[in-house]
């Protein structure tokens, strides 16, 4: 049973995770042309790579990825290579996830990029733990998706979406009621982006902060590593409660020992 669990964990880490992240990297830049229905593959822009670097730093700082546990001289070379490939796939998946929610051109593109940069830069200095970081990222990508694929798509819809009419009415007298030119894609683009982002967040949920490696660690070491990883996933309040409970238990044991010594 335990062997089966170990095998499944290894399959998830060495096969499923790279597959998920590479699929995100593939689909993140995919758009469908509105008129012809042709595929358009858009490589990640430079700003998406910068955002991805910031996000990787945030993963490391927030404890979503414990780098010393992912790369170590104690691991077998195969393990380190596999981990490096998985994290590389995560890097490109992150870049493509941003690419998926960045407008293709115009002022909005720079506004969105600035918004992401600002958020990620601020988060570098915030106290995060993995679970909260995941929730924060899910909210970030969710908001970005709604802004780009629902609000902006409606604003630039060729047939004039509800937001376009509303904005036109509001801005009448200030501008000609338009926001410049933005490429419009087929609705399938929004669906592709939705599933890409969902897959990306699922991949992040599956990433173990400190992978236990079947090659070097002994069973007690792995159990301890697992406990430490679980501890890191707790919130600050939960950690304080756990520490107090451990201290109370340890103190009780010590008192029992002292009592037993005095009786002898």
């Amino acid at each position, binding site marked *: 049973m335990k062997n089966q669990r*170990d095998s499944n964990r290894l399959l998830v880490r060495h096969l499923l995770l790279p597959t998920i992240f590479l699929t995100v990297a593939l689909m993140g830049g995919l758009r469908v042309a509105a008129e012809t229905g042709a595929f358009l593959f858009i490589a990640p822009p430079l700003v998406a790579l910068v955002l991805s670097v910031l996000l990787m730093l945030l993963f490391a700082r927030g404890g979503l990825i414990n780098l010393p546990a992912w790369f170590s001289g104690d691991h077998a070379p195969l393990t380190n290579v596999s981990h490096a490939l998985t994290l590389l796939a995560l890097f490109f998946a992150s870049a493509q996830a941003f690419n998926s929610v960045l407008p293709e051109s115009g002022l909005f593109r720079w506004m969105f990029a600035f918004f992401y940069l600002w958020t990620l830069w601020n988060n570098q200095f915030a106290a995060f733990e993995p679970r909260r970081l995941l929730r924060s990222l899910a909210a970030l990508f969710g908001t970005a998706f709604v802004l780009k694929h629902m609000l902006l798509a409606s604003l630039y819809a060729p047939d004039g979406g509800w937001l376009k009419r509303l904005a036109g009415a509001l801005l009448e007298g200030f501008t000609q009621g338009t926001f410049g030119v933005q490429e419009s894609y087929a609705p399938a683009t929004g669906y592709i982006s939705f599933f890409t982002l969902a897959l990306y967040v699922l991949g992040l949920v599956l990433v173990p902060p400190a992978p236990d490696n*079947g090659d070097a660690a002994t069973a007690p070491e792995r159990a301890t590593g697992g406990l430490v990883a679980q501890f890191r996933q707790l919130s600050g309040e939960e950690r304080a409660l756990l520490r107090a409970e451990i201290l109370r238990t340890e103190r009780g044991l010590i008192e029992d020992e002292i009592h037993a010594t005095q009786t002898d």
Partner: protein
Amino acid sequence: MQPKLIKSAGIVWTILYAAFVVWIYATAPRTFTEATTGASVVAGTYAIDEARFRAARELFGREQYAAARDEWVRADPAMRDARTQFYIAYAFYREGWGRVYNDDALFRQGLESIERAIRLSPEGALTVADPELKIRSAAELKAELQQGTESSIGDLNPLKVVRERK
């Protein structure tokens, strides 16, 4: 399952899948058909549609050059067959040739096709064994197309009208 086997399989799979993603972005296929054609080229299983090729050759024989080109393009969607590219170039030449002046736009497209054919043929030498063609080598057709696009004093020669189309 052995951990070593899982890790090795994971590494191989990740590298192959990453290569596929890079290839997709490099070739940017616009449809599933283009993607599968591209994949068959990479896998070395790509072959032109011979029936379409023959149909195009018949159209070419009936001087339906534009239709013939369309059929050849469908027969070789990946533009990987040197012989088909040669015929496309020849169709451009025939259609663009004029007794008084040539159609430069068609000749330029013909040049693109013949250069592609030369690139695709082994050692850059291509000869087509078709008795009905007056030009059978890619180099000769390229020279003819290049000559047609260049302006020279010879263009003013009135005897030019008696030259024949190849």
